[in-house]
């Protein structure tokens, strides 16, 4: 794993690049998109583990901190939802450049999933999306999902949210574009569960399998 700064002089982002640990003959990139706010810190460990598992499965992985969060430059007060979507785009470009990939997949947790969905709908070089416990808080997110023309996995780890997710995600099963799945295990973004030492192994492996 190589930590580094990337971006422009006025907009530095912290990234952790995990190159593939398996020769697959072609580069398959995955950008991991953190949740925001208080969900970011508890999710860090699971994201690091996921990056390692994806690298074992043959992916080149970049996880990064949005501007104004984590080790990236700037203050939270300067950042907005559109600027974080731009950060995801910047990370995609960085990963393509670093790994030599033509296309990448996105995996976002909570609001990271919502932003990733929006970015995916605006770019032609995103081939797959994992929306992990996405924030299902409105029309904009759902519209972004319906605009997608790529295979999407909506992964839910809480039963209560699973019900909400199934109600809100448009039924496109006929086209086979969006799969909604529930898996057992901890919700990594919940602060109360943080520090107990557990990892949501079924969720991590489901993401790796689905992206294989």
């Amino acid at each position, binding site marked *: *794993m190589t*930590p*580094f*700064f990337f971006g422009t*002089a006025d907009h*530095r982002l*912290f990234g*952790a690049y995990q190159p593939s640990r398996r020769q697959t003959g072609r580069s398959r990139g995955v950008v991991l998109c953190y949740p925001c706010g208080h969900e970011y*810190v508890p999710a*860090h*460990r699971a994201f*690091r583990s996921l990056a390692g598992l994806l690298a074992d499965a043959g992916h080149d992985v970049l996880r990064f901190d949005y501007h104004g*969060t*984590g*080790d*990236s*430059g*700037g203050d*939270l007060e300067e950042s907005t939802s559109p600027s974080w979507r731009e950060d995801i785009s910047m990370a995609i470009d960085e990963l393509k450049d670093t790994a030599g990939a033509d296309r990448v997949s996105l995996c976002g947790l909570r609001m990271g999933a919502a932003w990733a969905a929006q970015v995916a709908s605006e770019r032609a070089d995103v081939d797959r999306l994992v929306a992990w416990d996405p924030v299902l808080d409105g029309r904009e997110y759902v519209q972004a999902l319906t605009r997608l023309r790529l295979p999407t996995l909506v992964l839910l780890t809480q039963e209560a949210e699973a019900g909400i997710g199934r109600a809100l995600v448009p039924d496109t099963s006929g086209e086979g574009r969006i799969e909604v799945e529930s898996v057992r295990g901890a919700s990594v973004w919940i602060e109360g569960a*943080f*520090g107990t030492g557990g990892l949501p192994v079924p969720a991590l492996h489901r993401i790796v399998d689905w992206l294989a």
Partner: protein
Amino acid sequence: MSDRVRDDVQERIAHFGHPKTLVGVVSGPAAPRAVRDPVVVVLNVGVIHRVGPNRLHVQLARRLARDGFVTLRFDFSGIGDSGPRPDRVVADVVRQDISDALSYLEASVKATSFVLVGLCSGANAGLRFARLHPGVVGAVLLDPYWYRTPGFYLRHYGRRLLQWQGWRNVLTGQGAHWRMVRDALRGDEPPAHLEEGLMAPPNMIPRAEMEQAVAELTGRGVHLLSVFTGGHEAYNHKEQFWEAFPRFKGTPEIRVEFLPTAGHTFQRPADRRAVIALIREWLTSKPFTRAPQVSPATGGPGIARLVS
């Protein structure tokens, strides 16, 4: 290569340890000539990675960089972005990690004196390490483990006597104390958290060890800034530090502050600003004795010479 995160602050990734499994970020002033002594090292809080709760460590490091201080925030082995130690037989991993961090700073910025900053378990780790390394000239202990005194109990229960909710619980049979009574009557085992005092919490520093550490460090001229928040479960008055250890009252190396409105993880921006201001003021006002050795060949301990 270092990176400018503000006009006046530069940061660089630090990879160190043997082998280089530890990861951190070094912050410093953009102008190398402005570097001041000592170098600050910020330690992990529990399993939270180096950015700290509510990004406290990042904000502290960047503010100190603007004042001219070099700061390293890094992850202990197995936490955050740091890998596990290959030499798993090391009994005290945290001690070895901090030692590696200081060695890295000695080599990369020619640092000779250090201030350790830690919150909660990080404070305990800093205090314990400070005893072992002569280069440590100061420690900032944010909500370190502390000791309930008779004064603590008087204040705690005195306040509860004045609260209607406490009386309502007594009268209606609600609350933790009634539950303990009911459990005892049923013969149930009390929950682990109610056995406090009988069992040592994981972060506990025995009182004798704390007293010995404070005596040893202040005797060596090490400055201690202890900041307690209103979120500390065992501290409820500024004077409680001295209540626990009256022998240290008047010791010039010890400064104690109490921020009653702040939470344990400094959730509110105003509380983060307050504690950062305290640390800045303390760092710039204390006569830390060990100055860094400036190499004439390179001109000074500038951030630009950091190796990654």
